[in-house]
């Protein structure tokens, strides 16, 4: 096992009864690296993401995280309290629908502050200042800090969700279709923002998407999935420019050219 990896999953399998969620998937992520997972609907992308985040229990395989103190933790072995603690400190999860990842009846500031308060911040002034800083970072007007996310546009909600997740400086962020359901100009804005934040803060990321443009823009490496299996993996440009597997070729060639 390499010692400088951040995150490693080996031979993960998840079954839904007779059906395969994902099968024998291995991947590793280095600090600061962005990994894209692409594939059609139902190919097991989201299942895989939820498995490696620890939301779904895996049937086979191991998941390792090299935590801040350089201890290697196995997600399939550690206790639930420990896992939940890691999920809200070292890791983060951005949902496709911001409504799943935000508390809609709590102000923007409260949404950002929640993770801080969860890890023990108890100073209102400080929490508010950090929240305001983060709103600025994700290009939401600071004057909206006390407004509820339900009054925000879809793009703003998504940016707020990103801020809420990044506020505790996680080292690895999981994103499930972060730009799905947004119109193209808003998508571009969010991708731009994500790219800057991920590079600036040196956060590693796993991005699940069916949009090849998203991975082209953000990812260093990608894996292509079909029917729960990884059929191709490699450097992003390499896979997208010279796909080897039949399905990858189909995927790449089906992108609309304008």
């Amino acid at each position, binding site marked *: 096992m390499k010692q400088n990896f951040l995150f490693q999953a080996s031979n993960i399998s998840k079954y839904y009864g007779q059906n395969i969620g994902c099968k024998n998937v291995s991947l590793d992520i280095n600090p600061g690296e962005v990994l894209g997972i692409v594939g059609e609907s139902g190919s097991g992308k989201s299942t895989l993401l939820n498995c490696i985040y620890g939301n779904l229990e895996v049937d086979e395989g191991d998941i390792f995280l090299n935590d801040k103190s350089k201890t290697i933790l196995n997600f399939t072995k550690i206790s*639930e*309290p420990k896992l*939940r603690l890691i999920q809200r400190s070292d890791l983060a999860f951005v949902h496709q629908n911001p409504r799943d990842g935000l*508390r809609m009846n*709590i*102000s923007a*500031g*409260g949404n950002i*502050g*929640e*993770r*801080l*308060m*969860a*890890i023990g911040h*108890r*100073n*209102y*002034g400080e*929490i*508010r200042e950090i929240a305001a800083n983060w709103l600025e970072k994700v290009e939401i007007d600071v004057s909206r*800090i*006390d407004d509820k996310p339900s009054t925000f546009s879809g793009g703003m909600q998504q940016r707020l969700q990103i801020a809420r997740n990044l506020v505790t400086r996680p080292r690895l962020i999981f994103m499930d279709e972060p730009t799905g359901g947004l119109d193209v100009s808003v998508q571009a804005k969010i991708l731009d923002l994500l790219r800057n934040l991920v590079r600036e803060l040196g956060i590693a990321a796993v991005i699940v998407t069916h949009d090849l443009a998203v991975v082209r823009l953000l990812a260093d490496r990608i894996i292509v999935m079909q029917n729960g299996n990884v059929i191709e993996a490699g450097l992003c440009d390499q896979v997208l420019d010279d796909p080897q597997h039949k399905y990858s070729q189909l995927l790449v060639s089906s992108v609309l050219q304008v």
Partner: protein
Amino acid sequence: MNEMSKNENLDIQIYNFAYLDENTKRMIRRALLKALCIPGYQVPFSSREMPMPYGWGTGGIQVTSACLIPKDILKVIDQGADDTTNAVSIRKFFQKTANVTVTEKTSDASLIQTRHRIPETKLKEKQILVYQVPIPEPLRFLEPRETETRKMHALSEYGLMYVKLYEDIAKHGHIETAYAYPVKTNGNYVTDPSPIPKFDNPKMNNSPAIQLFGAGREQRIYAIPPYTNVKSLDFEDYPFEAMKANFKCSICGSSDSYLDEIIVSDDGKRSYICSDTDYCKEQTKLNSKKED
């Protein structure tokens, strides 16, 4: 076991001592013991139908019923007062079914059932304070899933509780929550003190009396044993403040007891009086003695 014989002087000998049957009382006592062992933990119990509607203190009554012994002296208060509907009906209920002595004097009572107040007179050892609780789960309106709130308690994930206080300050400039103000019991479980005003919160801390909480509809019992640390949640820069209306009682003149605001005329004239009627009486007596 059967204490029926003690009820001989009752007209109708239908009910067991203190209404509930012995097995039910035993079940509730078991829950109470567990609750006392794990301060602040909500113990599920199989709440019974009581001869009054939910919201009238069915949880408190069941706890009282399980604790009551014939030589107990019972006091019942509702919002601090001995003479309001809820207090009167519950007091009568136990007079009828348990034939216990009742009192209005806090210091004489061995068991006090309360709705929404803690008496002003300092409680002492060997007294039991039974709270009627509408919603035992402090996280209920923040996280609707019971499975999730239980997990949050088990793992002491209380960030969300602070989000509520954060929202208060963001909206009102101070912590607006004025009743049912969340506390941390014994440095562990976040507990709902029932809808008592936050003015009463400090009285819960290190109290010599046993504090029992019963929620009938929600089927939960929890407890704070004597001399337990009870801390109201707050922020470093917005510390907890026990507050009350800044007036004097217009009957007894007390300025340190919790006051009720009463509108006394059509043009909105207000008057403030002690919510604790027993305390008010005591103070009035003391005042007239001083004048003599």
